[in-house]
């Protein structure tokens, strides 16, 4: 079966774009007098009514602090928070809910692993292995950890097309490697990395694997057990949930061995001035009052996505991306940046002789929101020999009209820059 061609025919039946758009009030506002074409979903996604209503309902009728009081509302809030944890557990197919640690986002999740899992055992000459296509948030925490320990950060190469060179990555895994940390989907190129294969090869050398899933969670079904990784990080705000909430999934036996990374309330078993003992995971890693409403909102967002059926979302987005790629390729002066073998969510491109920032400003006035710049992947930009790209990134509410708007806006860019040329 060829999923692409079959989906192409059946998608419209299963996928009701108008209904979805109706769930996102912001999409009906105008920007600079134009219909908004929101193609900056990799930066952050818009929020459906269901998420905002869940927040409102929680604050108006169930809110209190968690894990503390014996009173009614405290129990309700604790229940809502722990139900959200279980909900996230189902979303990534975790073996148990206690493997879900709530964080502020993917960034904090990665920092947690760097500080609590990697740093305590990292010695001089040890190595952490990442890839050329990482977001700064999967580079800098490792630089900090390596610097402190005198360890070495190594970087697996990519091809000119933007695919990970997985054999080279494997050959860089040695006795000194303490962790492989790799992005699931590149936020700049859309490359989908073969995580299961990477995990298999790393594990055959006894090395654990962290996956930065910030750009995968909104687009792919996530199954940490079949991926076979050891940690998985993502952000709520990129999966149609609130800002300030994110997730670290970790294998329970690893989490159990890890010391806390922040101290405070909620994470302790007992405290005396002589000795404090810590609670079991995940609570050990959640010092202080957590983002309770954020977890509730995230849970509602995951419900929303699952009701849509992520397979149909994926088919719809893939179709839209294929069309956009084709049309961009046929547009004079447009160069695609990266041609990964497997892609989702994101298309990066440049226009001959025109800086991405100028593209961004001009299309903005046409109501088209895209991101331009280095996308927090400066080493990747260096590798590809560009300082910046224009990036269109897709979400569940995008349709052909958004792609039309983008291409018309790019025509406008060319006509402005073509003047008197």
């Amino acid at each position, binding site marked *: 079966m060829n999923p692409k061609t079959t989906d192409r025919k059946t998608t419209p039946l299963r996928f009701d774009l108008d209904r979805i758009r109706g769930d996102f009030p912001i999409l009906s506002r105008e920007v600079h007098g134009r219909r908004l074409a929101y193609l900056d979903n990799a930066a952050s996604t818009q929020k459906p009514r269901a998420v905002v209503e869940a927040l409102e309902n929680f604050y108006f009728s169930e809110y209190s602090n968690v894990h503390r009081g014996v009173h009614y509302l405290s129990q309700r809030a604790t229940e809502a928070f722990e139900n959200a944890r279980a909900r996230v557990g189902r979303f990534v197919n975790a073996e148990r809910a206690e493997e879900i640690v709530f964080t502020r986002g993917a960034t904090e999740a990665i920092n947690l692993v760097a500080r609590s899992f990697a740093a305590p055992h990292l010695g001089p000459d040890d190595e952490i292995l990442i890839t050329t296509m990482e977001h700064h948030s999967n580079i800098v925490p490792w630089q900090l950890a390596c610097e402190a320990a005198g360890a070495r950060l190594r970087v697996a190469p990519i091809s000119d097309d933007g695919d990970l060179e997985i054999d080279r990555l494997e050959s860089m895994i040695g006795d000194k490697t303490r962790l492989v940390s790799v992005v699931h989907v590149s936020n700049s190129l859309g490359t989908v990395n073969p995580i299961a294969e990477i995990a298999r090869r790393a594990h055959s050398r006894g090395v654990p694997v962290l996956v930065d899933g910030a750009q995968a969670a909104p687009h792919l079904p996530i199954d940490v057990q079949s991926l076979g990784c050891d940690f998985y990080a993502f952000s709520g705000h990129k999966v149609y949930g609130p800002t300030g909430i994110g997730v670290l999934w970790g294998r329970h036996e690893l989490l159990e061995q890890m010391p806390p990374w922040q101290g405070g309330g909620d994470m302790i078993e007992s405290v005396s001035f002589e000795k404090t003992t810590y609670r079991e995971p995940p609570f050990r890693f959640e010092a202080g009052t957590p983002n309770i409403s954020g977890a509730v909102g995230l849970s509602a967002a995951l419900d929303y996505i699952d009701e849509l059926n992520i397979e149909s979302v994926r088919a719809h987005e893939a179709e839209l991306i294929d069309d956009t790629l084709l049309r961009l390729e046929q547009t004079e002066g447009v160069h695609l940046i990266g041609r990964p073998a497997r892609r989702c969510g994101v298309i990066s491109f440049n226009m001959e002789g025109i800086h*991405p*920032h*100028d593209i961004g*400003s001009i299309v903005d006035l046409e109501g088209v929101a895209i991101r331009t*710049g*280095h996308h927090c992947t400066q080493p990747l*930009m260096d590798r590809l020999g560009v*300082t910046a790209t224009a990036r269109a990134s897709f979400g569940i509410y995008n349709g052909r009209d958004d792609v039309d708007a983008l291409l018309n806006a790019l025509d406008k860019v060319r006509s*402005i820059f073509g003047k008197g040329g």
Partner: protein
Amino acid sequence: MIEDLYQDIILDHNRNPRNFGPLAQANRSARGYNPLCGDKVEVQLQVDGDRITAVGFQGSGCAISTASASMMTQKLTGATIDEAESMFARFHDLLTEGDAGEAQEDDEELGELEVFAGVRRFPMRVKCATLAWHALRAALSDQGEEGPVKTEA
């Protein structure tokens, strides 16, 4: 309107930047970097006493930053250091003084630089237009420090 931002003269300087390339006789220089977009510019100066006798720039950036750098080099060639400082202040006001900027728009001193008034409506782009100017000021303030560029007086 977008045409306010991308006026012909800006597009022309972007396409054919003036005084672009290394300045052989430079005795001052500084780099400007915009971490938001990765734009880089290096401004080189030849300063004679209190007068800027030559200005050149290199780097890569958007149309706004390239045109601004190019037009700055033309504007400041032959100016005194004080005149350059006061020009920067006028230029900065032009970009940031809200819509009450009519006084600046009639500012004869600014001359062609007034085409950048359109940037005011695009706050995210003000840094593009001022990048080269900030580098210029850094180059000028080098005086008296032990940096690589130092002049007689």
